[in-house]
């Protein structure tokens, strides 16, 4: 099997977890991420992320709060494969599942996929090259990440590649991303539009706190009109959650047309965008942008379905304000256990946020790659297989 998935926001926790699930199933994964370009261009130790942390550019909420501990490269490649404790590698529900899904142990340790030997042998080189997705950079720095440390302690998979997305210049950035992707893969089988932020903070404890605060604020706002949010924030949400995915489809679609491709487009969204089921405790701009994304998915479904494309619309159940539990309450991310002073409410979820991300990504990997009984209907589907109304 030689299947390639392209994931928008591959560094975002859900995108990363999904990428790992897919590589574990034998897929090649290419992803776009706003954080990538600056890292390629900057020397280790002189990264500009801190200085540019407040870039207000539309469509790049991930740029904020990127804190990759002590490294010049991200955790999708190089010395950091499988080493970021914030990025889940399994479901967290049992040791067995944890082990089975863990890329830290490598897909080859799962014993689930037969066709790996070839790729494992190629892995050493590919892993190194994946650190620099841009072809010119790859040749000049092929040894940069092959220090003994990572080579000895980590498995070879090397099947994730990140391409930069400078969303300050979206038109050019997407053309460049399409060009780089074409150099990495013959075609794209599966396009995953993981728009905006599924999990708004990647920084464990601080994230839990600020998620909680955001939830409390939102609850207050519900009682206290007018609503939160400036026009600028609302437009930024529209760019991040609705326009960025459309830009991705526009530019990457030609790579999906190739003969024999799976031709599947998957939207990662949320029932926040459901008009009948959504609630008022999310920022209005984000809710509206997600609804626009659902409409976009439907229009593409109507159009490209005629050419054999199939679609998935997925709610990973990771809304920062609701958590993964049905009827879950704000503070879902708060079970890291590090805050002993917080009363353990009965509604506290049973899983940590990374575990929820991992479980949701695991479900998504199957949902996205497997055939579906009814491809004639586009349904917003949750991480338990439940259907959400529009």
């Amino acid at each position, binding site marked *: 099997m030689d299947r390639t998935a392209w994931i928008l926001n591959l560094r975002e926790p859900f995108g990363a977890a999904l990428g790992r699930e897919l590589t574990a199933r034998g897929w090649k994964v290419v992803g776009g991420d706003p954080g990538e370009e600056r890292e390629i261009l900057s020397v280790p130790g002189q990264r500009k992320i801190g200085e540019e942390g407040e870039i207000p550019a539309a469509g790049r909420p991930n740029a904020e709060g990127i804190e990759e501990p002590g490294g010049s490269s991200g955790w999708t490649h190089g010395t950091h494969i499988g080493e970021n404790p914030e990025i889940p590698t399994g479901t967290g529900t049992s040791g067995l599942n944890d082990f089975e899904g863990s890329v830290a142990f490598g897909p080859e340790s799962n014993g689930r996929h037969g066709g790996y030997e070839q790729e494992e042998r190629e892995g050493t080189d590919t892993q190194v090259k994946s650190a620099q997705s841009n072809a010119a950079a790859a040749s000049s720095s092929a040894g940069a990440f092959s220090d003994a440390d990572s080579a000895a302690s980590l498995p070879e998979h090397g099947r994730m590649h990140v391409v930069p997305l400078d969303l300050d210049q979206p038109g050019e950035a997407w053309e460049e991303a399409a060009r780089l992707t074409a150099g990495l893969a013959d075609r794209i089988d599966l396009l995953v539009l993981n728009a905006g932020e599924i999990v708004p903070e990647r920084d464990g404890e601080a994230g839990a706190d600020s998620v909680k605060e955001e939830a409390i604020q939102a609850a207050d706002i519900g009682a206290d009109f007018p609503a939160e949010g400036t026009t600028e924030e609302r437009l930024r949400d529209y760019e991040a959650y609705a326009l960025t995915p459309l830009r991705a489809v526009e530019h990457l679609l030609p790579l999906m047309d190739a003969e024999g491709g799976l031709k599947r487009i998957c939207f990662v969204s949320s029932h926040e965008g459901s008009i009948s089921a959504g609630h008022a405790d999310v920022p209005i701009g984000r809710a509206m942008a997600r609804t*626009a994304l659902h409409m976009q998915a439907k229009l593409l479904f109507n159009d490209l379905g005629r050419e054999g494309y199939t679609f998935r619309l997925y709610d990973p159940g990771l809304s920062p304000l609701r958590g993964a539990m049905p009827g879950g309450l704000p503070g879902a991310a708060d079970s890291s256990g590090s805050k002993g002073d917080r009363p353990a409410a009965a509604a506290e979820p049973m899983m940590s946020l990374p575990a929820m991300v991992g479980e949701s990504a695991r479900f998504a990997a199957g949902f996205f790659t497997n055939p579906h009984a009814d491809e004639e209907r586009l349904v917003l589907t949750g991480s338990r297989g439940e259907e959400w109304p529009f």
Partner: protein
Amino acid sequence: MNKHNAVVTGADRGLGLALAEGLLARGWRVFAGSYLPDWPQLRELEQRYPGTLIILPLDVSSDSSVLAAAAAVEERTRSIDLLINNAGVITDKNEDSIRVPQDYDEMIRLYQVNSLGPVRTSEAFHPLLERGELKRICFVSSEAGSIGKAERTAWFAYCMSKAALNRGVRTLFDRLRPDGYTFRLYHPGWMRTYMSGEKNNEAELEPSESAAPALEYFLGSTLPWDDKPHSVDEDRPVMRDWQGREWPW
């Protein structure tokens, strides 16, 4: 008797003009948002209803314009009863499928006017509505915002803007219904209007043909001061068309 006050956005022509005229005929005082100062129809209506039609310069895509309009209304009255968010725009890029380059500036323009405009206007006029008797906010949306019924294969900018509007209305409903506000969300049908720049003569309805059922719906089958029971379920947000049919989300 004090007149009841209404604000209608996008009242220069088309449905907005017909709605303003219908309200004036029913004895309302109307603050008419005007985006096209050179378009004559609203000025002609003003001459027929001096003092009860007040023209407001209003660009619903602009925070400052909307706030200035709300301030201008507040100089004339301390309360409004009815806000009709009618202003909307369309684009000549509707037929551009995903296979051709998309115009993202147009998408943002439509979102600013069609989606954020009504939210922004509702927020700005909230203090005036709060002191009003009816507390009713109406939105002219479109069947094009129905995801469940969508059969189009392009029209990204317009359909996305109207679907987002419907979601925004839902949030406003959830937040304001407990305070006694009531909501109307309306699909006016395909009208012979100038929305695309030139008058569309192929469409099936004159704006006045849609404005009459619109006002019936917006004002309710009865009004609270008529001392009769309401026939509308105010606790369920729905989108209805000019024939009273409910549209799925």
